[in-house]
């Protein structure tokens, strides 16, 4: 009796009920309980207290849990569980059916739809992007082509404006008595040669008419040089080339205030200080 009381007061029975003892210690308590009815009674009292304590602090689990658990229960040997679906296999191996299975499935289904929608959207976006890209390329090429056209037109317009101005100058010449039109004729060097020089006596302008140019084409090593004869002395009026693709009608030369005659010699490229007399190809008096 004294042994039993001391045993009770040691606190081991509480630990027994709380599952805190080793298997060895549990057996010892169970042996003592079998031996001393007051120990057994004490254990029951502790158990009841703990049971009530748990009841007082109970929390009701979610309502669906009962159904899930009861569905999982099958009497041993009476029936074998139906073959589990693959999705449930892993959880059933550990003996637990995930409670939120249904929730996960619907979530997964939603996510699948979302994924499919995303993929479709991505595809559409890709196609739209590709198409936009192609169209952009076309547009770019068109812009480049239009720019080139525009530049060509601008060049043409510039050219036309320039030539128009020059033609206007020529057209105005007869009305201005100061403009002298000097026709140069070929010499012994080339009797066929001929050209026209416009000279404005008061404005001192000297211009050559490309359209009336009758000189043979010069090569790269040589250029024609225009001279003014002032009181018998040649004055350099600059060099010029004769070629087919000149964009100007009028060639502006150096200015001169007075001249008796004009002459052209073929000189080395860049011109000479004094005319090479045997290379004089054309001359004409004012």
């Amino acid at each position: 009796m004294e042994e039993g009381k001391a045993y009770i007061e040691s606190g081991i029975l509480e630990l027994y009920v709380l599952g805190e003892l080793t298997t060895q210690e549990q057996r010892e308590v169970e042996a003592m309980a079998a031996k001393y009815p007051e120990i057994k009674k004490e254990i029951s009292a502790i158990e009841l207290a703990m049971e009530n304590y748990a009841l007082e602090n109970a929390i009701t689990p979610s309502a669906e849990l009962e159904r899930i658990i009861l569905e999982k229960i099958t009497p041993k040997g009476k029936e074998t569980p139906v073959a589990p679906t693959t999705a449930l296999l892993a959880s059933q191996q550990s003996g637990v059916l995930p409670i939120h299975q249904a929730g996960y499935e619907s979530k997964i289904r939603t996510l699948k739809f979302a994924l499919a929608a995303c993929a479709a959207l991505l595809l559409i976006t890709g196609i739209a992007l590709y198409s936009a890209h192609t169209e952009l390329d076309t547009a770019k090429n068109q812009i480049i082509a239009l720019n080139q056209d525009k530049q060509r037109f601008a060049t043409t317009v510039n050219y036309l404006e320039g030539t128009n101005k020059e033609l206007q100058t020529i057209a105005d010449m007869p009305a201005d008595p100061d403009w002298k039109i000097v026709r140069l004729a070929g010499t012994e060097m080339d009797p066929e040669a001929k050209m026209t020089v416009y000279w404005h006596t008061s404005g001192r302008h000297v211009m050559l008419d490309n359209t009336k140019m009758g000189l043979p084409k010069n090569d790269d090593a040589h250029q024609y040089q225009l001279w003014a004869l002032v009181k018998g002395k040649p004055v350099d009026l600059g060099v010029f080339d004769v070629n087919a693709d000149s964009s100007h009608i009028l060639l502006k030369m150096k200015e001169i205030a007075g001249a008796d005659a004009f002459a052209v010699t073929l000189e080395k490229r860049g011109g000479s200080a004094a005319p090479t007399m045997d290379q004089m190809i054309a001359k004409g008096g004012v």
Partner: protein
Amino acid sequence: MTTNNKISLTEEQLVLALKAQDTNAMKALYDMYSASLFGVISRIVVHTEVAEDILQETFLKIWNSAGTYDVSKGRLFTWMMNIARNLAIDKLRSKDFKNASKNQDIENNVDFVDAQKETTFNADVIGLKDMVTALKPEFTNVLDMVYFKGYTHVEAAEELDLPLGTVKTRIRMAIMELRKHFN
């Protein structure tokens, strides 16, 4: 199935039916004890979904191990509660659960758990009911650490920096007080 009617049986009837693998016994068992067991599990493992998984595991184990329950060794609830506590504590200490809980040490889990309660549950539901008792809180605290928070009494002694004997005494005092309270 009469899901809306709570079944209540005496413990003897229940044990017999359970051992006979009567599914009605499980229904009764669930109706009578699920909330009590869930209260214990929920305070050890605070995540509701995990706690419900453990409750499910607990009932399956009760069902499958009914044959091993020995009436002479104690009350049915004590047996069931220890199954639930062991499963919950195993889960709490399992590697994946610790990782999920951001590697909280078991010692620190109490604070972590306490912090979690506020968000996971209504504080009125989760908080332990204040006992109408003359006992100082440090006595009930030791019991609550072991009963509701998954500590072993050895760990509780280490955590509180108390001799093992003192912890045992306090647990006994607290349970004595509970017995008075419920009588």
